[in-house]
């Protein structure tokens, strides 16, 4: 059986897990093509108009797979951590895809919901596994292997590799520049999709700027920092981002922050605002890129270069550039 995995949304977090599980059970895994303009255009045509760009892109990836596979894997992800949720669009994703795209092959829409009981994950594995084999032991074994691969993947990210490189089997040697480090925040599918982020990491590399992402900080640390919020953040990815933001704001590790946000993202509308408030209090430069299907790379490049220049001059302490437009204390002393 040929199973298609769209190269979008949580592919950037769970692909090693899905891939290992399916391959262990003897299925062929087909991934859709790398995100590109045509995929986005096709997706945007069938998707609801006020959906966010990663969702439109995902629809395009599904279309890309439509005639190539026997089934497309679009799990119904309701909750991926105890007591937490993720964006509600993930929960309705199989329904959205099914009613937007014409004539699709079978959609595997197993529900994953471990909000109340973590044991439910086993059930989800079983449900998917049953489609491929009737041997229960084999499914359990495959699930264990998949979770192990997932742990390895997370470990590699903790060691400072980018998911976008790892998923293309490019174990780029970590290059550490002397100088500036910028944290790149955002949902994984915005940060690691080089089409959505308009090759941000390459641009940073060319400018001699180190990039760090939230996935390079361990969950224990981000959990501890996120717990400082007066009310628990109930979206798993948002909690990770806020935890990372608070950690960086407390440390001296970074010189600036770039937040990649998709237009109309409900969770980012709150998370980005909270992050901005956190960094503003510490005087760390913070730059939000809002992306939709009309975003142009030229404009983005100009803004990125200006931001990079500002960071470099700040670092040299040329005139202690203010990050937020206020007069810096040094200016006032000079007067």
């Amino acid at each position, binding site marked *: 059986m040929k199973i298609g995995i769209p190269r979008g949304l949580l592919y950037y977090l769970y692909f090693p897990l899905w891939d290992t599980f399916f391959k262990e059970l003897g299925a062929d895994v087909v991934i859709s093509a790398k995100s590109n303009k045509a995929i986005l255009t096709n997706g945007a045509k069938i*998707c*609801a108009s*006020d*959906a966010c760009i990663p969702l439109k892109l995902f629809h395009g990836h599904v279309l890309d797979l439509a005639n190539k596979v026997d089934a497309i894997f679009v799990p*119904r992800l*309701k909750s991926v951590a105890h*007591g*937490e*949720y*993720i*964006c*509600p*669009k993930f*929960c*309705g*994703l199989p*329904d*959205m895809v099914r*009613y*937007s795209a014409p004539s699709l092959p079978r959609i595997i829409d197993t*529900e994953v919901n471990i909000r109340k009981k973590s044991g439910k994950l086993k059930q989800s594995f079983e449900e998917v596994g049953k489609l491929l084999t009737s041997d229960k032991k084999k499914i359990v074994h495959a699930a264990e292997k998949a979770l192990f691969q997932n742990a390895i993947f997370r470990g590699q990210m903790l060691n400072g590799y980018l998911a976008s490189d790892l998923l293309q089997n490019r174990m780029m040697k970590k290059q550490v520049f002397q100088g500036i480090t910028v944290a790149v925040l955002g949902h994984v599918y915005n940060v690691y999709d080089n089409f959505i982020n308009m090759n941000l990491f390459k641009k940073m590399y060319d400018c001699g700027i180190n990039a760090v992402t939230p996935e390079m900080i361990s969950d224990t640390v981000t959990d501890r920092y996120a717990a400082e*919020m*007066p*009310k*628990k*953040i*109930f*979206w798993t990815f948002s909690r990770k981002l806020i935890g990372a933001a608070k950690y960086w704001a407390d440390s001296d590790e970074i010189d600036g922050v770039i937040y990649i*946000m998709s*237009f*109309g*993202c*409900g*969770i*980012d*509308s*709150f998370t*980005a*605002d*909270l992050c901005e*408030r956190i960094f503003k209090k510490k005087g760390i430069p913070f730059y939000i890129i*809002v992306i939709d299907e009309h975003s142009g790379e030229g404009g983005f490049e100009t803004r990125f270069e200006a931001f990079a220049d500002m960071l470099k001059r700040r670092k040299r302490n040329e005139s202690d550039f203010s990050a937020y437009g206020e007069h810096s204390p040094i200016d006032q002393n000079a007067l």
Partner: protein
Amino acid sequence: MKVTFPHMGNIHLLIKTLFDELDVDYVIPPKCSKRTLELGSKYTPEMACIPLKINMGNFLEGIERGADTIVITGGAGPCRFGYYAEMHRQILADLGKDVEIITIELNENGIGELIAKLRKLFPKKPLATIAKGFFDGFKAIKQSDALEQYSFYVRPRELQKGATDQIMKQFESEAMCAKGRDIFKAIKLAKDKLSEVKRDPDCRPLKVGIVGEIYTLIEPLTNMNIEPILGNMGIEVDRSLTISEWIKEHIIKGGLKLKKENDFVKAACPYIKTMIGGHAQETVGHTVLYAQKGFDGVVEIYPLTCMPEIVANSILPEVAKDFDIPVLTLVMDEITGEAGYRTRIDAFADMLYRRRENKRNELVLSGN
């Protein structure tokens, strides 16, 4: 302590009755207006949904009138509403406003915290009195919801245009002045007046159901008075969500963990299988139910960037096709213009009238 709270349609009737009976010092923020929205949008994240912005405006206008405590309900996701209180707290703190925010919610800290909060809000009152206050408040909102629903029935049938609007307007100002239990008198009076409105006995109005996200559906500022607009075009309106139903389902049944049995869940099941937060399931389910009840059309309203409704919105075309019912989608944000909005509704209503006529003509021609 001077308490204020956010508006949402007639919810102030509930809170007013409750606070009056329990002698809480409160200030009702002025009715939601353009100024409320402008004030709110100025300080809230650009991409946040419109209810957050209007709530913020309500609080700022309440604070202008001397409030120092804010009461709002909470939640635990996945809809953004659950994190509203925290956003408001951060924004108000950064603005330098010294206010306390009390969130009425059942969270992971259990019922003890909720009771402690209620004790703080209503000091020295026995729990039984508080419960009685809630009961009366609930009764007030339930009756006012019924009154509104009744006005939707009367408005398209009235012989003298504008009679219903006038009665409802009068009720609004009387209800604002009523103290405590006087509210019930005001509701009764308005209801009696409505039943005396002269109606056209031969009127067979078109019927339109309204579905979508609850806040935009209920707050007149965000839906730009859609019920009176449609009603005055001679269309009978049914609104799928009301505040009293919401309280019954989420606070009473949800709080007591009673089993919820709803038609709309069953109706939505073929299209959307689980609860995904917000009102996506309601939107899809009620559209199916309206179609089955023979309604002529459905209007869907939701705030821009509303996560659950985007899911519902991408499924609705399929429902509309399966049940042959026209659906008009209206997405609201702070820059939605009234003229464009009216034009779309006008066009939709015209289309519905023609559709009905065509159907009748077909019947005549086919000779069945």
